[in-house]
């Protein structure tokens, strides 16, 4: 028992370090890039062009229909066979960004559609270009609706980033596996890793409610 407590304490810093140097930056960068991809894909999906919209559909279908593990595998281990060899971190960031892009695209599309048509028209009638309508009227309002589902995507990403160990990125889960392999106490170490993920998720959820509150300032009640 006390052995376990000792092991728990000794492993805490290495695991947290794995989170700080691996999980968190990986998740942050991939999420930011993923959002940009998602916005582009969402607009493609909403566009009148059948080609663009079909491309977006296919992209979303592949991303959401296949396991992330395989996506990582293909990018890291498969791409070299077509001459593209990327380092672990770039591979991980590309794979996770594309993944977030696919999931968040549907969220953003729904959020854009949830803004009443009259808002587009109000923008149009005062002379705005389509870009202005989108940027100054629709997206600020869509942001409000999309915070909760996007924060879900973010939290999922944090946990999914444990798969990055498969392509040589050291992060929280990998560190706990290493310690477990040495101490043979994988249950304890996995729960410890889970705890770290839970803390990160809880922080994110807290950030989410702060953000929601801020974005809600122009809404009654």
């Amino acid at each position, binding site marked *: 028992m006390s052995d376990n407590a000792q092991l728990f304490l000794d492993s805490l810093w290495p695991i947290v370090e794995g989170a700080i140097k691996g999980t968190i930056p990986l998740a942050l960068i991939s999420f930011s890039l993923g959002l940009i991809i998602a916005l582009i894909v969402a607009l493609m999906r909403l566009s009148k062009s059948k080609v663009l919209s079909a491309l977006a559909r296919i992209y979303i279908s592949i991303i959401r229909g296949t396991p992330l593990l395989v996506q990582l595998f293909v990018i890291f281990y498969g791409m070299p066979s077509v001459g593209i060899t990327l380092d672990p971190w770039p591979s991980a960031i590309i794979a996770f960004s594309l993944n977030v892009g696919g999931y968040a695209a549907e969220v953003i599309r729904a959020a854009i559609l949830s803004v*009443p048509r*009259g*808002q587009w*028209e*109000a923008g*149009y*009638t*005062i*002379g*705005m270009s389509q870009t*202005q309508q989108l940027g*100054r*009227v629709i997206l*600020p*309002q869509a942001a*409000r609706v999309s915070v909760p589902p996007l924060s879900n995507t973010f939290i999922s990403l944090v946990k999914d980033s444990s798969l990055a160990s498969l392509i040589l990125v050291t992060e929280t889960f990998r560190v706990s596996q290493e310690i477990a392999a040495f101490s043979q106490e994988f249950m304890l170490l996995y729960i410890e890793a889970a705890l770290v993920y839970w803390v990160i998720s809880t922080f994110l959820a807290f950030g989410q409610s702060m953000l929601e509150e801020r974005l809600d*300032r*122009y*809404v*009654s009640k």
Partner: protein
Amino acid sequence: MSRNDANSGAGGNFGSQSQPGAMKRSDMNQGDVLFDVKGLSKSFGDLQVLKSIDLTVRKGQVSVLMGPSGSGKTTVLRSLNSLESPDGGTITFTGGPSFDFSKSQKKPERALLRDQSAMVFQQHNLFPHRTVLENVTEGPIHVQKTPKAQAIAEAEALLARVGLADKRDVYPFQLSGGQQQRVGIVRALALKPDVLLFDEPTSALDPELVGDVLAVMKELADEGWTMVVVTHEVTFARAVADQVVFMDGGVVLEASTPSQMFSNPRHRRTRQFLDRILNPLGE
């Protein structure tokens, strides 16, 4: 942009085309024609919503559109602001641009038509994420590139005129329906368009708040703004309109002065409709 040179400086009044000797309101056929709508038609899929609409709007006059639900009033207004693209017909501005909808419209053409007018919506459609002042200055600053200080000064003057000077920094949800609608009007005015379009501006309001909005509209009319108003407020039409246009099933059944329309409508359908709204219990 045509809306910029039509008016200048918002001072004590709404900055309109106010004419020193206001025209005799009751004579709908006097005054310069501002624009002429001819044969306007529009279908949504199989449903023909407008069937060759003709409409003449004179400078400084108030035209009221009435008619049953679904008769196409909103579609006419939206076509004027180019929120809809008609399938046929023309709109010709006297001494200005003209638009032929039988040819397909390009983006700059649609923008040019839009810029002649500004729309006040039934559901006001204020930007909920912007303050009152930002709602009003959004167009002048970000579209018309008016210097910020000037746009703000003009917006403040207009807000003061509708009694909302102290609301400049609140968000729309903090306003009553009537106040929201007045901001909607000011947002349209700030663009200095040639024509103001109103689509049932009071029908979503509490009865006690209707008066505030109608009073502002009457003032605008008195100052000589050209207005096209869809409304069923008979009192307003009687007092303010130069012409009342009655629509049914996508056509203009008749257009005449308010006194003529309300006392002696020519069409059976018009009479029946006015009867319905003037005596809801049919007594």
